[in-house]
């Protein structure tokens, strides 16, 4: 089952990359862009019988390794849900 994990910088945490992308976009002429945030997109295949089993695994992986709660939020999607 495919799992997609989205990791984003936490509210209130500096996101220099997001800021840099935003200002580059603006200087490229995309003036109507704001609130840019840059995070991570992690794709994984989990062998699981049910979506809920895959979800449990995904949650554990996020908490153990994929996101750092001090600076990041995460959410995930299990394919086919």
């Amino acid at each position, binding site marked *: 089952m495919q799992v997609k994990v989205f990791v984003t910088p936490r509210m209130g*945490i*500096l996101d*220099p*990359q997001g800021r*840099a992308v935003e200002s580059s976009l603006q200087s490229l002429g995309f003036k109507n862009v704001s609130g840019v945030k840059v995070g*991570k997109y992690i794709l994984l295949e989990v062998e699981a019988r049910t979506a809920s089993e895959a979800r449990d695994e995904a949650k554990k992986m996020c908490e153990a*390794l*994929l996101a*750092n709660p*001090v*600076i990041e939020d995460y959410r995930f999607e299990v394919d086919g849900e």
Partner: protein
Amino acid sequence: MKWGVVRFPGSLDDGDALYAIAEVMGQDARILWHKDESLGGVECILLPGGFSYGDYLRTGAIARFSPIMKSVAKFAADGGLVIGICNGFQILCEAHLIPGALTRNRSLSFICERVWIRVENASTPFTRATKRGDLLRLPIKHGEGLYVAPEDELRQMEERGQVILRYVDADGRESDAANPNGSMRAIAGVANQRFNVFGLMPHPEHAVEAMLGGVDGLKIFQSIAGSAR
């Protein structure tokens, strides 16, 4: 004092730290392999700079799970001295042995240069050979050294004296220009609440010989050596 320098895959300044402690200071130091769990009876553990596991995903995130880190955590819980330099600092944060996290430099690029550091707390095992307010000239070299922690936690850390080192200018003053990576409150080094675990971005092991640009880093190692239990 007996020192152990941990070698993770991708550690780079491990040899330099060993050289500084063993060759320059003449102390007993050895390499500890990340796959081992034994600490070989050392009295201080140094987590060196580098790019452990390529620093893929997040700096220090994967190294934290090395077998040796279990022993390091236990050693720290027992009050043993642990110092993490650069990547070592990042690993300590990921391992929750030190509060906060290190993220990409404000400039988004790697920075290698000598900077001024002010000692904020000289009564720790890592700084006892300095005085509060002393300025140290130390090199930094990192892409992810911007220190962050929640505001309320920072406030408490300041009150407890856990902020040990700060980036300043040559006159010892804080300023935006003197903060090379954009760290919150210009923080360059912090300790845990018990003051036995210390993480810093600057590299004291690269400031131990005059020929290579300065000796201020020795003060950190001398402090630790003088803190032997």
